[in-house]
């Protein structure tokens, strides 16, 4: 087979170009394509046409226009997304991710970097190292790229001056030391005129290193995924009939042979590879990057999201991690809110339990923070509902990377890389246990509680309870509200307002609230509940420590004066019997967990106090 354009031996090189606006990124890519004669005649004539219309290079062809894709951004002259380019030389094929440089596009850059093995950092020789260069280097390093080309561009505009080049290289090397790059190759270059892009320039006789293209063709970025321990995330169970049960997935790292003993990471179950298909072909062995289907010697329980490994080199299994996350959504990150975490083929609810610090992408400083906004990077603890098999990202980019998905909007809210696990998952055997109240609550990332609002009619119980509930809802907390309106019309419609019926009313509410806390909810009840004894009963029905009695305190004269529904007026006229405060006593709580004095503060301020109390009790995450 004729392989003049491709070499089967060298894997495709995926690289990323980064630099600030106008450093010459697009020009460089355009130039590379042009010099490889990879721009077709019809594209070239379109380019000439476009250059006249939008170009910045006068009569010359503006190569940047070749790669700036979408209409809107072409008119603004900026690159707003990630564009992928494909080209091949006789030695190798390449995929280029072209991403924007502005700080507000950190997420786009991270996206481009996630699949790249090498990064070209462009620097304008006139300007030297800029804040942007530092930011890009940090992101490149965080996303696990180990090979960097420092392209000192526009060298024509500093008269091909060697000292200037050396100065920039030195500054970069000093700065990049802690970032863990394996190789940094600096090249003086002019993207616009082609110096040291694919041909050596005689205008930089002092530069003896490779041209950009020579380096890209030769650079060995092979992370030796084949030599790393075997990781096969199970993506799909292939079950066409009763005689065949295959587990399909792409080998993330390592080698797999027929006959190998394997272990299911999360369950610890062991079996042997009976059959191995690479794509559709029965094979003896397969390596990293291959899409395979395996059959096992034993019938063991394996599902999508499980990870197969060799027995002597297993991935970690945990449900809590320390990780860096890059926030990608306009909606800020909220600690405690539940997101979907997708890692490999596993999707699990998860919450950020603690934001340790935010990283200033420009200065690399660690800053205290309560939340992360769009394009911000933070280091945090994450708790997942299901145990996850993983490796630290630094060891395996496939099994250590994850995304967080907003459960309401479905957007990709964040990208994350696992630093290490925090706690080994305890529930290794996934089935055979009943779903406990702890499990219910863990799924919601909250601790159940009953907020029992008591007080006179018109004191403000429902107003405050409603406010508290909407504040909780906004934080992603799962709640239920029980009040006269929804209980009296259904569950308790057989009850009146005699003392006995009031007791039964409260008993039932207490039982329902308890059942709801068993399901993990934070329950708010809003009933006058005038008698101490029945409130005590409700407290006893509740799980210990979960009953929070909140006395909504208002003077009788005040509520009579307010009388929002005109009930006091009618009760005082004798039209309503058994009305609390008029012809039935209200027994104020002696030791409530909270007393809210409605005379002194706004309903909103009082609701905030309830929220703080829940935070203090660890029922909900602190913001």
């Amino acid at each position, binding site marked *: *087979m*004729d392989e*003049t*354009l*491709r070499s*089967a*031996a*060298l*894997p*495709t090189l995926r690289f990323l170009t980064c630099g600030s606006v106008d450093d010459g990124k697009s020009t460089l890519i355009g130039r590379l394509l042009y010099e490889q004669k990879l721009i*077709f*005649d*019809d*594209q070239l004539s379109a380019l000439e046409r476009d250059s006249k219309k939008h170009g910045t290079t006068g009569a010359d062809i503006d190569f940047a226009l070749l790669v700036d*894709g*979408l*209409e*809107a951004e072409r008119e603004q002259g900026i690159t*707003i*997304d*990630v*564009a*992928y*380019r*494909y080209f*091949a030389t006789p030695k190798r*094929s390449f995929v280029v991710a072209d991403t924007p440089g502005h700080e507000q596009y950190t*997420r*786009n850059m*991270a996206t481009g970097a*996630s*699949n790249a093995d090498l990064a070209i950092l462009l620097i304008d020789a006139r300007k030297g190292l800029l804040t942007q260069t530092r930011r890009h280097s940090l992101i490149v390093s965080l996303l696990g790229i180990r090979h960097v080309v420092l392209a000192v561009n526009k060298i024509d505009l500093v008269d091909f001056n060697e000292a200037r080049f050396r100065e920039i290289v030195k500054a970069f090397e000093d700065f990049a030391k802690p970032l863990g790059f394996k190789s940094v190759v600096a090249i003086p270059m002019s993207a616009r005129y082609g110096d040291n892009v694919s041909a050596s320039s005689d205008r930089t006789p002092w530069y003896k290193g490779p041209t950009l293209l020579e380096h890209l063709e030769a650079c060995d970025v092979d992370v030796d995924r084949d030599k790393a321990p075997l990781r096969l995330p199970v*993506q*799909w169970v*292939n079950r066409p009939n009763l005689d*065949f049960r*295959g587990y*399909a*997935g*792409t080998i993330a790292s390592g080698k797999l042979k027929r006959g190998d003993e394997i272990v299911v990471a999360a369950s610890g179950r062991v079996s042997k590879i009976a059959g191995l298909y690479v*794509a*559709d072909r029965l094979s003896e062995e397969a390596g990293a*990057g*291959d*899409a395979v*289907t395996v059959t096992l010697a034993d019938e063991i329980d394996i599902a*999508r999201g499980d990870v197969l490994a060799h027995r002597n080199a297993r991935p970690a299994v945990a449900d809590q991690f320390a990780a860096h996350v890059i926030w990608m959504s306009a909606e800020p990150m909220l600690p405690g809110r539940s997101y979907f975490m*997708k*890692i*490999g*083929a596993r999707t699990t609810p998860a919450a950020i339990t603690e934001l340790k610090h935010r990283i200033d992408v420009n200065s690399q400083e660690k800053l205290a923070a309560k939340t992360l906004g769009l394009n911000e990077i933070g280091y945090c603890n994450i708790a997942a509902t299901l145990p996850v098999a993983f490796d630290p990202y630094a060891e395996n980019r*496939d099994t250590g*990377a*994850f*995304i967080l*998905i907003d459960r309401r909007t*479905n*957007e*990709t809210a964040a*990208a994350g890389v696992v630093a290490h696990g925090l706690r080994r998952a305890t529930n290794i055997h996934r089935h055979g246990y009943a779903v406990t109240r702890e499990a219910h609550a863990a799924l919601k990332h909250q601790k159940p509680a009953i907020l029992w609002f008591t007080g006179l009619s018109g004191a403000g119980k429902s107003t405050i309870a409603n406010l508290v509930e909407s504040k909780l809802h906004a934080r992603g907390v799962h709640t239920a509200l029980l009040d006269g309106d929804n209980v009296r019309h259904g569950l308790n419609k057989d009850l009146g307002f005699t003392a006995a019926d009031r007791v039964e009313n409260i008993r039932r509410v207490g039982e329902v609230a308890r059942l709801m806390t068993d399901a993990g909810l934070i329950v708010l009840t809003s009933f006058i509940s005038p008698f101490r004894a029945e409130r005590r009963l409700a407290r006893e029905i509740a799980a210990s420590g979960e009953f929070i009695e909140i006395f909504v305190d208002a003077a009788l004269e005040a509520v009579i004066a307010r009388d929002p529904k005109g009930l006091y007026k009618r009760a005082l006229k004798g039209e309503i019997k058994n009305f609390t405060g008029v012809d039935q006593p209200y027994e104020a709580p002696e030791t409530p967990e909270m007393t809210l004095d409605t005379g002194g503060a706004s309903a909103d301020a009082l609701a905030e106090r309830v929220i703080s109390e829940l935070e203090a009790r660890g029922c909900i995450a602190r913001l």
Partner: protein
Amino acid sequence: MSGQLPLHLRRLEAEAIHIMREVVSEFRSPVMLYSIGKDSSAMLHVAIKAFHPAPLPFPLLHVDTTWKFREMIAFRDETAKRLGLDLRVHINQDGVARGVSPIASGSQLHTQVMKTEGLRQALDAGKFDAAFGGARRDEEKSRAKERIFSHRSAAHAWDPRNQRPELWKIYNTRIREGESVRVFPLSNWTELDVWEYVRAENIPVVPLYFAKERPVVERSGTWIMVDDDRLPLLPGEKAQMRRVRFRTLGCYPLSGAVESDASTLDDIIDEMRASTTSERQGRLIDTDEAGSMEKKKREGYF
């Protein structure tokens, strides 16, 4: 078919398989858009391998504009039969009733009604929540930025400024009721990759890709084939026999042929390596206006 695929093709194939398995695992009702061309043929071939030994776990859908080359339709039906596929063909009957055609209505309206609207109708009727397409990022500029999993609103619209970031091989497959995704497993393939794969795997393709004497007329610098008598000849125009082939296939009055002697896969690959024009040059719908593909895609074109 001998030995293993070259490494770069093996990787591309594995990536496409990974994407397809992800879709089948996470969507309720996927469908594969089958346009009969070489990309569709390659995509279908990969899909059959991805789910082996199970049969293809989704149907194929062809949106027929009624103006495809006759050889394409014959190839389509023969392929479905040979592979035992669940092939569904949809024609926008409303468009047919309105007499929409590339001749009478012009390429833009024809494409809009018969292709874009036809596709929407078929996807809605089938309640499909994921549709595979064979598009590649190297085809056209706006495609270069499209995601592999491309989210569509309930009205099938694409919002290029509001695409979900797509990191690593982790695809966000969550959608709301009524929304859908278009999935492009061959995103990272180039035209050359497709042909090399077709050759390495012996995948049958429509004979129109190979050079042969065909009746053609010259129109605005390209050869249009007189596939049937629906193509009105201009005064003085007469079909002539030329040795031509097609780089892309669509509606025959909109697909330009090139003069060529390439009659085998080897010839095609050699010819492409020496080529100085891009594949879409033969596709008349693209040159209508600047950014035309992006406009069409926002409206729901594939």
